[in-house]
Structure formats: C-alpha cells, structure tokens
C-alpha cells in the first residue's frame, strides 16, 4: 500500500482524484438541489459521443467531449423551450443519440482498444500529466466561478421566480450552472469514467444533504466527502485490484448510505 503511494502515477492519480472529488461535489450540490441529477447523467453520457469522435479524428478526446457536453446541455434547453416536451424527455433523447453516435464513431475507428476502457470506466494508469494539469486548472477555475456567483446561484436554486423578480439574470445563471456541470464531467472522466461520472457528482452532495439543513455547511461537507471518496476509492482499488472508477463511486455511495442512516436515526449520532 505505502509503496504504491511512492509511485509517480499513484501520486498523480491521488492529486487529480482529490481535486476532481472536490469539483464534482461542489457542482453536485447545485445539481442535487436543482433536481438536475438526470441532466447530469445526460451530460455525462453525452461525453461518450465526444470521446469517440476524438478517437476518430485523432484529437484529444477531452476536447471533443467538452463540445458534446455543452451541446447536450444547450440542446436539451432548446428542445424543452421549443416543444411542449418535459425536460426529462429531451434529456432521454440526447442521452440515446449521443451514445449511439459514440458507438458509430468507434465503429469507424480502427484499434481504439485499451484507451477507450480508461475513458469509459476510469483508470489510475490512464491519468496522464495532461489530465493532472486539467484538474489543476479546472478545479480552481470552477470553484472561483462558484465563489463569485455564490449568492446568485443559491437564490436561483432555491427560488428562481423570486430571483427573477429581484432582477437577477436567471436564465443566464441557469446556463452557467449547466456549463459548470459540463466542465466538471470532462474533468472527471479520466478518474471515474464516463459511465460513472454523474454518480460522483450526485452521491457526495446527496450524502452531505442528509447530514445538514444548512446550505453553507453542505458546501463544505460535500467536497470533503467527495475528496474522501476519491482518495479512499483509489487506494482501495489498488489494494483490492478493482476498477478505480467503480470503487470510488461505491465508496461515495457508502458515504451516502451511512449519512442517510444517521439522519433517520438508524445509526446513533455522535
């Protein structure tokens, strides 16, 4: 265990994992409180189409993934506004369509093999220097935006109508939130994988919600749980030789289960 931590790749994964755990959880607070979990899953899965296109075109898959995630967030909003469909229906359509495109692109790409597995399910070995740099840039950038618009994002999440009455740019703030979700997804893909990224966004925030009735406290608890989940998950996955993304998500889910049990008095509170 200890000797593993000595390896550069492990240090890199742990650092990137901590940052991404914090990032996902902070954005996750808004996702959970705005009822955007399915939107998160939709954007997460849309990245598959983007990653596959990246393989096909021979460009960095994360770049094309950003485009697909933002496109899905925008497209869902557009379809919801222009038709009488509910948002979840629009998400369902984009979800399927982007996945199908991904499969199509992969079919046209010879020999993508091992790499793709890293993107789909996350892998410590797949975390490159570049990925670490991405996490080092993205996490502080997103957190800075959240800090800047802290009270506005809170107001829009709690009572969008009242926020509009108060003169806040509600639609733009909602779009900003979706952009943050899209960037977060891309930042987390290499750690937990496309399939599980939305779980890392939702689970720590949901666990934090179980533990407090105070928004500001939730904003500290969620990233603490998120970081703890990624670090513990990464170490466990090395130790048990299991898939890292799945292990991280299961640890986060365990946090949620314990928090929910604490809230309901099944476990004694301290």
């Amino acid at each position, binding site marked *: 265990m200890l000797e593993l931590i000595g390896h550069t790749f492990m240090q890199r994964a742990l650092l990137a994992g901590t940052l991404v755990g914090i990032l996902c959880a902070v954005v996750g607070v808004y996702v959970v*409180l705005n009822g955007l979990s399915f939107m998160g899953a939709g954007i997460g899965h849309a990245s598959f189409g983007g990653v596959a296109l990246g393989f096909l075109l021979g460009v960095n898959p994360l770049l094309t993934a950003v485009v697909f995630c933002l496109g899905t967030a925008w497209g869902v909003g557009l379809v919801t506004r222009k038709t009488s469909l509910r948002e979840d229906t629009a998400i369902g359509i984009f979800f399927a369509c982007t996945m199908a495109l991904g499969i199509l692109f992969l079919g046209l790409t010879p020999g993508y093999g091992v790499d793709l597995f890293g993107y789909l399910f996350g892998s410590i070995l797949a975390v490159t220097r570049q990925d670490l740099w991405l996490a080092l840039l993205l996490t502080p950038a997103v957190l800075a935006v959240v800090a*800047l*618009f802290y*009270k*506005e994002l*809170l*107001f829009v*999440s*709690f*009572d969008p*109508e*009242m*926020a*509009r*009455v*108060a*003169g*806040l740019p509600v639609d733009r703030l909602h779009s900003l939130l979706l952009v943050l979700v899209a960037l977060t997804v891309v930042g987390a893909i290499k750690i937990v994988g496309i399939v599980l990224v939305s779980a890392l966004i939702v689970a720590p925030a949901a666990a934090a*919600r179980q533990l*407090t*009735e*105070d*928004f*500001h406290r*939730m904003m500290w608890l969620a990233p603490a749980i998120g970081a703890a989940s990624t670090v513990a998950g990464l170490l466990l996955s090395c130790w048990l030789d299991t898939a890292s993304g799945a292990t991280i998500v299961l640890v986060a889910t365990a946090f949620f289960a314990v928090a929910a049990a604490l809230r309901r008095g099944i476990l004694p509170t301290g």
Partner: protein
Amino acid sequence: MIVELDRVTVAYRTVTVLEEVSLKVFRGSFLAVIGPNGAGKTTLLKVILGLVRPVEGTVRVFGRDPRHLGAERRAIGYVPQTAAVDRHFPLRVADVVMMGRYGRIGLVRRPSAADREAARRAMERTGVTHLANSPLGRLSGGQRQRVLLARALACEPELLILDEPAAGVDVPATESLYELLRDLHKDGLTTLLVSHDVGVVAAFVDGVVCLNRRLVAHGRPEEVLGSEELAQMYGCAAVFFHHGRAPHMVVARDECWS
C-alpha cells in the same frame, strides 16, 4: 399611482387566462383580489411583477414596464404562493430573509452591515427573530409565511404583493398574519393581496377586485361583496352575513372552489 393595467390580456399558448383586465393600485391603498381557482389571480400578480408578458394591453408599475423596471424592481416585495417555495431546501431562516436583499446588493457583491440590519429589522417586524437559525423545513405553515413576508420586507418595498398568504396556515396564525399586514399598511405600505378569505379580508382592505378571467367587480368591499356580480361569478349560492362590522361570505366550498 403605483400600478396601472390597461386592458391587459394574457394567454398561455392558445388559452386566454386574463381578458381585458384594467386595474389601478394607488399609493397607500390596500387591495384584495378574489376569485375562484384558476381565475387568473396568480397570473395577474405575475403580470405586475414582470414575470408574464401580456399579449395585449399595457402594464405600468412605478410608471414603467415591469419587465424593464431596473432599480425600481427593488421596491417590490413579493410573497409567492407557498407551493412555489421548496420547503425541503437546506436553508436557515436568516438566509432566506437575506435573499430579500440580493436584488439590492447586486451581482457578485456580498451583504453589507446595512443589508444585515435590514434583514434583522424585517425579522423583528414579522416576529421571526427567534427562528433565525431554524431550518426552513422545520417551520409550521404560519411561521413559514412570516419568514417569506420577512424576506419580502427585507428589500424595504413600497409595494407588497402577496399570493394567498394564508394558505396552509391555521386560524389563529392567519388572524395574526392579517393583523400584521394591516399594521404594515397603516405604516404606509401599498399592499396587493390575493386571498380566499373574502370575509376576513373585507374588514380591513379598502378595495376588492373580483377576478374570473375578466374583471367581474371592482370597488369598496361593502359594494363588491353584496353585488350580484359576485354571486354570478361563483355560479352558486353565496351567502353573506354580517358579523360585527365585517361581512362574511359563505360558499359551498366543494361546489364553488374546486
């Protein structure tokens, strides 16, 4: 004059919800809007708040289009229907009340000492100071309405708009809530209230507007409540009796209000 609607028609897609409604709210007045469910009462308030755009007619709030109100927007306090507020949101009372200041504070900036002072005064006025640290989810219906009223007052409004503030509030709490509204009005706050408690409200408002897609009747409470139009609006037996000085109306609820 604070609010002026001139032949305002509102439609959601193809369904007309308000038709040629004209209405004036004078500074210092206390106006109640009554009408059956689905009459368009909430929509009328949203038109005034600039949340819904009329397909025809003009709206003026503080002499301007409410959708481009600019700084005057801060002079409107709004207490939405309870159903519109997520009571499971993790927020403490003091945070909710402070939101009333957000429109004044401006983007990106943090609440100042003056903002905190205004929020404190609003909580004191509505008697929720002792609840400042309570989570929103643990409040009774009456407490929650007072907190939302405190939020509306925190922006130091000139016009207060309330949408069925007594819904889901028990009788004693309703009475003290209305008493508070009456005191606020006495202190000079122009108030526009949507209510189901026709009789109770009639005792202290100075105007009643009956709405059922169109403006059915409009006038002083004693004129409106005894009117033929009101009985017609509900389309069933509406009986008024006088209890003390306040006229009370009794309608068969399940027939008329569902």
